[in-house]
């Protein structure tokens, strides 16, 4: 049974259709990417998922059914716009947010101390939240999200405002949670990180699902227009090549319509070219994202 199952949800705000017939499911233990440009409908989809908004139509099943108060204790949500009480000490803020997730004071203390040490915030726990730097507040928000050891973790832009060291720390933490069987929904604009961490993705634009599936499948779906070749010596003249692009000692050959990579390989072998590398050029997620958002590529 999927941890999250979204079926044909639609949500309208006045004249704006924020989410339009969106469907996808997230399996248990999966690290799932929810992508889309600004204003695409990601946050509205998450809010529908969390029962903050009721969809106009369609259904949402989370942790095996409709959202309930008890289920809230098993979900960790870190919204894109951070939300911590600014005027109280960090440790009190964590204690309060932990207590609302059903944790006892001793559990909150024990767990928060561990995370504060790990995130290098132990020395700042008695400071008011507003006295912490933006990066520190970001880490504090991540702690508040993980404190109750959720089964389902929804993190919206968790790397925003973090330096490379802390970005690595959060990446490691997400991987660790993933290994422990936590289902993770990662919303991010940093495509390289999504590519690095996620198994499957859904890409939403203008409220509609544009891409949905395994990351490798999607990259394959968008590949086939080019091959990357590295040969000993210069490449011979080849037919059916639209454009030649040098890339880090290799050459990317953009194929003309109708030309297949196998035909290029056959020609190169026939011309006795010694190949060090020949592979189908797989587009990066960044490239796919731009192509889809700019109108190329179909709806899922």
């Amino acid at each position, binding site marked *: 049974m999927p941890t999250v199952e979204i079926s044909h949800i639609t949500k309208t705000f006045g004249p704006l259709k924020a989410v339009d017939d969106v469907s996808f499911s997230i399996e248990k233990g999966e690290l799932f990417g929810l992508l889309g440009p600004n204003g695409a409908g990601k946050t509205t989809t998450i*809010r529908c998922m*969390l029962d*903050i908004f009721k969809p106009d139509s369609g259904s949402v099943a989370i942790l095996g059914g409709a959202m309930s*108060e008890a289920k*809230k*204790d098993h*979900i960790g*949500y*870190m*919204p894109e*716009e*951070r*939300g*911590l*009480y*600014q*005027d*109280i000490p960090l440790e009190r803020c964590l204690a*309060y*947010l932990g*207590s*609302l*997730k*059903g944790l006892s004071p001793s559990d909150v203390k024990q767990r928060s101390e561990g995370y504060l040490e790990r995130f290098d915030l132990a020395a700042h726990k008695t400071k008011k939240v507003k006295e912490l730097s933006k990066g520190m507040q970001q880490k504090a928000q991540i702690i*508040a999200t993980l404190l109750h050891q959720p089964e389902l973790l929804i993190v919206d832009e968790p790397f925003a405002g973090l330096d490379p060291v802390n970005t690595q720390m959060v990446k490691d933490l997400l991987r660790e949670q993933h290994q422990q069987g936590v289902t993770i929904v990662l919303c991010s604009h940093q495509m390289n990180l999504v590519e690095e961490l996620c198994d499957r993705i859904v890409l939403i634009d203008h409220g509609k699902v544009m891409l949905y599936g395994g990351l490798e499948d999607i990259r394959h779906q968008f590949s086939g227009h080019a091959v990357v070749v590295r040969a000993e010596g210069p490449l011979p003249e080849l037919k059916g090549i639209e454009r030649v692009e040098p890339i880090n000692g290799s050459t990317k050959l953009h194929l003309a319509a109708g030309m297949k990579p196998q035909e290029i390989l056959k020609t190169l072998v026939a011309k006795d070219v010694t190949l060090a590398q020949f592979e189908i050029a797989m587009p990066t997620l960044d490239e796919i994202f731009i192509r889809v958002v700019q109108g190329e590529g179909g709806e899922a």
Partner: protein
Amino acid sequence: MSKTWHVALHEYSRHVFNKRFLLGLLSVPFVIILMVGLIFLIVAMETDARPVGYVDFSGILADPVPPPEIEPPDKPVEFRPYADESAAMAALDHGEIQAYYVIPEDYLETGTLSVVHAEALKDGPRYQFYDFLAVNLLRDTDPAIARRIVESDEVIVQSADGSRSMSSDSWFNILVPFIAAIAFIIAMFTAGGYLMQAVVEEKENRTMEVLITSVSSNQFMAGKIIGDIAIGLTQILAWIGFVIIGILVGRVKLEFLQGIEISPQALLLIATILLPAFVMVCALMAAIGATVSEAREGQQMTGLISLPIWIPYMLTGIIIGSPNAPIVVALSLFPLTAPLTMLIRQGMTNIPAWQIVASSAIMILSAVGSIWLAGRAFRLGMLRYGKRLKWREIFAKS
């Protein structure tokens, strides 16, 4: 502990253990001390305790009995006899006395006496001299009768059914329900203000989104209202404590504080009108907090509630003069004006039972309705950032 209580406890501790709250709490005893101090200061300025002389040609004060005892804050004035006017005038010139009376030989027949002073004699020494003269005129009368004549009578005004009475010694009792109502209103706006501010802040700093994925909006709103009512009650109880201490200390010296009592009807009105009013104001302030996008806007909208609540204060003269007039009864039945109107009336008249029942029922229904309104405004407005929720959206069919 349920999440509602966690929210309530957080709300309570966040505001009560805060310098601003403690300053507000201590401001009341400070104001009371200041006011009592001012009373003593004014009385002291009105009383010139320098001796007053007299020249008695009538023989009434030849071997005088001492004047009656003086109660604080008045100060006793010494009365000095002089053999003739020139000696008295010399003492006046030297500043030994502030004035002197001349009691002529035919005083008993004419009732005429004169006073000589450099500056007008103040009320305190003047009345003390008349009492001194009176006790000496009555020296051969039965002491009980003499005391009754010198001390003024206390007339107890009683209602026909005997349920209410008032005397000159218990005038302060009229003010007690009025003061209680004002204290409640100040406390409810303090607590309601905290609630509104907290909701606006939680929207502004985006804590709201995290909170509502942890608790239901009903639990959250209920917790906040409970927490803020507890803040208001803490404030009121602390003030009552200060007032009781003030009365216990002050009644030793101030006679008007000795007859203070709170009638059972005033207590009934506090429980059935002021407490629901408290809930209503807190819930309405929460609703405002949920609809606005920033704290300043919320403060402006608070006037929509606070202005009608203070209207009876501005109409105190009318309410005291005609406590059963139709307009006053109407104010007693309107939720925002009922708290102050009913408590002012309570000190002045016998409020008919049907009006108490009707006003209480309206207040309780208003409190329940306000909670509903706050809950709905909260659900619709909690994630509205930078845009105000319109009231017609709250009442629109969902």
